[in-house]
């Protein structure tokens, strides 16, 4: 994934033209698809999940969130020793 997939380098005038295209009601959608293709997102849409029973996650919730404690536990730093850090 480190190998760049897209040759265009957009800055200066080229970037301004790209912004105009992206904001255009006429070509904005096509421009999005171009960006998708160049950034590998089109291939992402081709991933077939039909054999999987996977629900989307919209918030990461790494588990297990065990050993719950509260903030009160933490204000008792031992300041007598700099090694406490």
């Amino acid at each position, binding site marked *: 994934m480190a190998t760049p997939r897209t040759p*265009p380098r957009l800055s200066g005038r080229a970037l301004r033209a790209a912004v105009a295209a992206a904001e255009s009601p006429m070509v904005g959608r096509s421009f999005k698809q171009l960006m998708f293709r160049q950034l590998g997102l089109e291939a992402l849409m081709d991933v077939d999940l039909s054999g999987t029973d996977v629900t989307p996650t919209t918030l990461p919730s790494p588990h297990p969130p065990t050993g719950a404690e509260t903030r009160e536990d933490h204000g008792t730093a031992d*300041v007598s020793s700099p090694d406490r850090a």
Partner: protein
Amino acid sequence: MAPPTFHRPTARDYVARYRDGQLTPTEVARRTLRAIEASDREHGLTAFVAVDRERILAEAEAATRRYADGSPLGPLDGVPVAIKDEFDLAGYPTTAGCAWRRDAPPRDRDSTVCARLAAAGVVRMGKTHMHEVGLGGTGINPHYGTPRNPWDVSRIPGGSSSGSAVAVAAGLVPLALGSDAGGSIRIPSALCGVSGIKPTYGRIPGTGGSLLAWSLDHLGPLGASAADLHAFLQATWGPDGHDPAATEQPAPGALEPLDPGDLSGLRLAYCPTFGMDGQPEVVAQFQAVISELRERGARIETVTLRWREQIQPVGYLTLCTEGATSQREALQRHRSAMGGDIRLILNVGSRVTAVEYLHAQRIRRLIRDELVALTADYDAFLNPTCATVAQPIRADAARTGEVDDAVSGPLSAYTFAGNLSGLPAVSVPIGTLDEDGHRLPVGIQLMGSAWSETRLLSIAAALEAMRPMPSPAVFYDILA
């Protein structure tokens, strides 16, 4: 590797000077203010966007009095810490790197993280520059200027926590607050040769932050050492009752002192097809560390990642879509004041359909489950933090912003894994390589299971001892 003749002052060094009476927080704050000015004047570093001298000296004087009274608040009392300009700090506006926020009024209250730093006695040393709205890995900001990499001031610092990384790397502060939605703590840490941690999702509440992408954003520190990162984490972790992402969680325990000469207790893993396709010299540095860890007794296994090729695309899609949503009103009202790169990415994100976003989130679930299972079996999963070292800043990119996957793609190629999964990830400098007559840092990333920050930072501390870093070309020793 350069000889280990350089010691980067840590927060612990600052506190030791205060305790033995060699220095006071007030004197250190004065020196830091002078060094910030000098770093701009002499080298154009521009790490800081706003520095309120009176507020800083008031906080430093309060810390000085506590030491004089024999009642310091803890291991960070009187330590200067820079604040990324994405988080509210009373008395300062929060611009998040946006030109349209340039004249925003000062905030009247602290963000949760800044309030907790104040409670720990920290001297909040002003606000640092950042990539506009945090949406970019280079740190290039056409509105406020691009902070310069202290290893080579013609190169990017990395972003989005660009000023925070530069401030730590140049020795201006030992710690700085950053945030990370796709690598924004770890990328600039790696490119500037300092340590940085993106903790577990929800570890530090984002309340009072102008954040970008709800499901990807993490707060965390960049610092002079792993021990400093740990001290920061201890001062700022835990729910605040406002940020729904910051739920009940275990406390970070004490650092485990690992013997860098004998790491036989460690079980580590890396994937030969994830992280080995970058700049050859970066890969070589990473492989050298793997060999060195093995020589010191660590058990290192290779693993496969089925969903590795989807990690960065899912990260991109999630980031640009959530970013377009969080910045929706700003894009409608202030688009002409936005940098071209931000405007372009947000417009593309605005056109992502719900079906596309949710399809990506289904794949994200598979990525997350795979990484959660992997990190359950090992102390850490390793890869280079970035696939390249810092690249030069091009003149027109500095003027308008830049969208260039050849530059930004290799920066976040491996970092998104931590954001998509919510698992903690640390970047530690492991050496430098020579390019165009400059030494440029390389970082290694360690990712672990949920809430395992202390274990990761203990390993990071051993790596710091194993691979001491030379000094950057631009460095100010505040304690000297």
